C-alpha cells in the first residue's frame, strides 16, 4: 500500500464523516454523530500512517525529508490539524455535532490537495534553502495554529447562524449544538490556543530565516501577512479582554481572522510574490 492511496481513503473518511455529522444534525439523530466520530478517528489514524509512509517513501527515492515541504503536503497536514483539533474539542467539551461545521474543512483541504490541477503531489527532493530542521518546526507550529483558527472560524459561523434564528426555530434545528455561551467560550479557547501557536510559528520562521539568509525579518509578503493576521487576533483578544466584547462581535472577528489566515496561506502565493516556495509547486 502506498501513501497516496491511503491519503485517498483518508479523504473519503473525512467526506463521509462530514456528511454523517451534517445528517445527524439535520435529522436530529445523535447516534449518527457517534458514527461521524468513529469515521473521523479512523481518518486521523489512516492520515497519520499515510504521513509516516510518505516520509519513508521520500527516503526510498533519495530525497529524505518530512512530508511538510510543499503546497500538497501542507494542505494534507492542515487537514490533519483541523481533524485533530476537532477530536480534541469533541472529547474535552462534548461538542460532537460541531463536526458538521469543522470536518467539511478538513475534507475540503484534502480534496483540494488531491484534485486541484495546480497542485503537484509528487515527492521532490529539497532545494538547499529548505534543508533545515527549522522548516519542520516552522510548518508544524504554523499549521497547528491554522488548524485551531479554522475551527475557530467554523465556531464563529455556528454562533452567527444559531444567533440569527428565532428561539423557536432554534429549539428545533440546533438542539444538538451547544448553547451560545458555550460556543462563545469555545471560540475564545480556540483563538488563544491558535494565537500561541501562530506566535511560535512566526518565531520559528524568523529563526529559520536568520539561519538561512542572515535576516530574521525581511517584510516579505508572506511574513507581512502572517504578522497582519497576528495583529488581527491580538486585537480580538484585547477587545474581548479589556473592552468586554463577546458573542456576535467576537464571532465575526473569528471569521475575519480565519479569512486572514486563508489569505496568508493561499492568497499570498496566488496574488503576491515572495520567498516562500509553497505557491510555486
Amino acid at each position, binding site marked *: 500500500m502506498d501513501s497516496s492511496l491511503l491519503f485517498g481513503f483518508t479523504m473519503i473518511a473525512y467526506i463521509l464523516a462530514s456528511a454523517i455529522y451534517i445528517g445527524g444534525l439535520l435529522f436530529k439523530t445523535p447516534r449518527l454523530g457517534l458514527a461521524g466520530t468513529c469515521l473521523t478517528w479512523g481518518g486521523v489514524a489512516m492520515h497519520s500512517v499515510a504521513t509516516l509512509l510518505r516520509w519513508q517513501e521520500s527516503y526510498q527515492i*533519495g*530525497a529524505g525529508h518530512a512530508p511538510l515541504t510543499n503546497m500538497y503536503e501542507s494542505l494534507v497536514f492542515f487537514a490533519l490539524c483541523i481533524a485533530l483539533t476537532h477530536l480534541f474539542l469533541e472529547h474535552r467539551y462534548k461538542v460532537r455535532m460541531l463536526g458538521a461545521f469543522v470536518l467539511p474543512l478538513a475534507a475540503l483541504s484534502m480534496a483540494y490537495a488531491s484534485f486541484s490541477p495546480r497542485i503537484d503531489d509528487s515527492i*521532490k*527532493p529539497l*532545494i*538547499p*534553502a529548505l*534543508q*533545515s530542521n*527549522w522548516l519542520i518546526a516552522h510548518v508544524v507550529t504554523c499549521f497547528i495554529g491554522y488548524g485551531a483558527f479554522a475551527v475557530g472560524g467554523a465556531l464563529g459561523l455556528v454562533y452567527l447562524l444559531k444567533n440569527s434564528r428565532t428561539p423557536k426555530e432554534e429549539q428545533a434545528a440546533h438542539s444538538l449544538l451547544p448553547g451560545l455561551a458555550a460556543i462563545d*467560550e469555545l471560540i475564545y479557547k480556540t483563538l*488563544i*490556543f491558535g*494565537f*500561541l501557536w501562530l*506566535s*511560535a510559528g512566526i*518565531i520559528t520562521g*524568523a*529563526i*529559520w530565516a*536568520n*539561519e*538561512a*539568509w*542572515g*535576516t*530574521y*525579518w525581511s*517584510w516579505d*509578503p508572506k511574513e*507581512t*501577512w502572517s*504578522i*497582519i493576521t497576528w*495583529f*488581527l487576533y*491580538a*486585537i480580538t483578544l*484585547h*477587545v474581548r479582554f*479589556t*473592552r468586554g466584547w463577546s458573542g456576535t462581535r467576537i464571532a465575526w472577528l473569528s471569521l475575519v481572522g480565519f479569512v486572514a489566515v486563508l489569505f496568508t496561506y493561499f492568497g*499570498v502565493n496566488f496574488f*503576491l510574490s515572495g520567498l516562500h516556495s509553497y505557491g510555486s509547486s
Partner: protein
Amino acid sequence: MSSQQKNPLIEFLASVQLAIFLLFLLATTAIIGTIIPQNAQPALYVEQYGPMAAHFFQLLDIPDMYNSWWFTGLLALFTANLIVCSADRIPRLIRLLRRDNLETTPEQLARYELLRRIDMSLTHPDHNAQLDHLRQFFRKHGWKTQERRKDNGVLLFAQKAPWSRFGVYVVHASILVILAGAVLGSPAFARKVLKQNNFAYKGSIMLPEQGSTDHVISSKGGDPVIDLGFTLRCDHFHIAFYDNGMPKTYRSQLTVLENGKEVLQQDIEVNRPLKYRGVTFYQSSYQPYQDYTVQLRKEPDNIVTSQTIVPARQIQWQEGGISYGIINRERQGEITRRVKIWLHDGEGEATQLWVEMNQETVIERASGKYLLTIKQVYATGLQAAKDPGVWLVYLGCLLMLVGLYIAFFLSHRKLFAFVGTSGSSDLLFAGMTNKNKVQFERIFTRMADKLEQR
C-alpha cells in the same frame, strides 16, 4: 498618584483604545507593502503607476515603507503606548497582590460566586477538630494555608499562582525586548545614531575560489565598503545536483585569517553559516567562471601539477612530458557537467575522452599513468551580517512564548474557609479565580463535595 490628576497625554498613551487603533492601523497599512513592490528601481514606479503616483509614493516613502518615517512613527507610538499602559497598570496589580487576603470578612465571602455552606457539626463536632481537618484537607489537595483568628471564627486562606497575573506584562515586555533588539541590530541605527557603520550591517561578498577579502559591500545606504577587521578566504566552492537536475548542495570552504595567519576553517552551506567575531557568513549565491583547475599526477614517477586553464588552449606540462587541453564541453547554462580532454605524450595517437567534473580519471599512456581531476572555477556569493541585537530578539521571542503560556493557561486562584466559633458550626467555603472560571469551578465543586461527604 490618584487617577484624577493624570496628565491627558499620559492618559491618552495609557489607553487600550489607542492600542487597538494602532494595531488596526499597523495591520492595514502593512498591506500596502505587500501589493506595491518594495525597494525597486525608481523607474519601475513611474512605469507601473504613472509619474503623479510615483511622486506621491516618494513623498510617503512607499518604495521602502517598512522603514519610512510614518511606519516607524507608528511603531514608536505603539511602543510608547505599550510602555505607558503597562507602567500604569503594574503598580495597581502589585497593590492588588499585596492586599491582605486574611482581612476578608465572612460577609464578603458570602457574596462570592463560588460558595458552599457546609454543616460540619456531624463529622467534626469540635471546633479545633474542624480546623485540623480543614488544614489537612487543604494540604492534601496541594494548597498551602495561612490562617487568622477573628472575633467570631477562624479564616483559612490559600492561593495558587498569584504571579501568573504578570503573564500579560511578560508578553508586553517581550515585544519591547524584541523591538529593542531590532533597533540595536539595525544598520540604520549603527550608521545614523552610533556613527559606526561596522557595528551592525548587512552586506554581500563575491569571492572567487582562492580569493580573499577583508571587507564587505553594504547592501543599503551609507558608505558601501565596510571593514571586516579580519580576512576571509574562499578555498573551494562546491555544487551538487540531484539526479533530476535540481540543485542539492551549495558548499563553500572558507578560511578566516588574522594578520595572515589561518585561525579557522569551516564548510558552510545554506542553513549552516559561519560565525566569527560577531559576523555571520551565509551561503547565498555563486557564479561559475569559464576557467578550470586541472590536477595531474603522473605515476610511477609520482609528480604532480595543478593549473588553472581555459578551454581550447593547449597546455604544456614539461616535467610530466605531456601536453593537454580542453577540446569540448557539455554545459547546463553556465555550469559545466563534463569536458572532453585531449592529452598527448608525443608517442602514437593522442588520447581524447570525456571526464566528469571533480572525478579522478585515469589515463594510461605509454609514458606512464596519468591521474587527472578537473574542476570548474566558481566564485561563491556570501551574505555577511553583523547583528548585535539578535540575541535580544531571540530572548524576547522566548519571553513571549512563556508569557503567552502564563497569560492564557495559568490563573490566580484563591480558596477561603471560614469556621465560625460561636453558635452555628457552618463552614463557609469560597473560591475565586481571575481566569478559566469553568475549570476552577469544577475543582471547587469537587473539593466542596468531598468536604460535605465526611
